[in-house]
């Protein structure tokens, strides 16, 4: 059993990413979109938390939202997979359900 968790808040604004990480099971996937993609950037105070999460969860970030926010691929934390909307759809299909941490 695996779920897709979507996070659309900057981790500097709200605790949604932290909560999603803490309350998701090992093997879950976390997709960062909208302002959530700020959580995918290197060198931030949140990087350690995201890297720890990647120990037993997979983290994804939505390409168009990274691009709009001037986050180049080399600024994205290693191991975070960048997906487009088609990839988002595939993640929804590959998981049992989707939980939005609004």
């Amino acid at each position, binding site marked *: 059993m695996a779920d897709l968790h*979507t996070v*659309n808040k900057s981790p500097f604004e709200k605790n949604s990413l932290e909560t999603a990480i803490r309350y998701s099971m090992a093997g879950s996937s976390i997709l960062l*979109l*909208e*302002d959530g993609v700020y959580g995918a950037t290197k060198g931030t105070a949140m990087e350690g938390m995201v890297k720890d999460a990647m120990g037993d969860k997979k983290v994804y970030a939505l390409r*168009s939202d990274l691009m709009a926010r001037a986050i180049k691929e080399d600024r994205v934390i290693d191991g975070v997979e960048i997906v*487009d*909307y*088609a990839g*988002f*759809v595939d993640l*929804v*299909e590959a998981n049992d*359900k*989707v939980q*939005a941490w*609004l």
Partner: protein
Amino acid sequence: MKLAVQVNEGPYQHQASDSAYHFTKAALEKGHEVFRVFFYHDGVLNGTRLTTPPQDDRNIVNRWVELAEKYDLDLVLCVAAAQRRGLVDEGEAQRNGKDATNIAPKFRISGLGQLIEAAIQSDRLVVFGD
């Protein structure tokens, strides 16, 4: 895969309806079925045909309408949320004595049961909001 999509925010104020649109479009283009897009909370504001964005910006309402025309999408505005926010179709105008309607084509107003039904009938519910 059969999908239900829920949109909780109005257009322009929040990116949620953009994300929901792009997701829905991508799912349809991949051949998935979208059982229903249900608009709740301020999301019902996606369904007013009176929206007039500047020429150089996207028209979020028309985008939904065009997608619905192409794929025969079921776009449903929650009636309780719509009444609070002044979204009116012919039936609502008659029932509540309003002098105008503003619902965009391809949208319809119906009850929350449509959301529950969509969640039951679909393989996945995907929620976009604030």
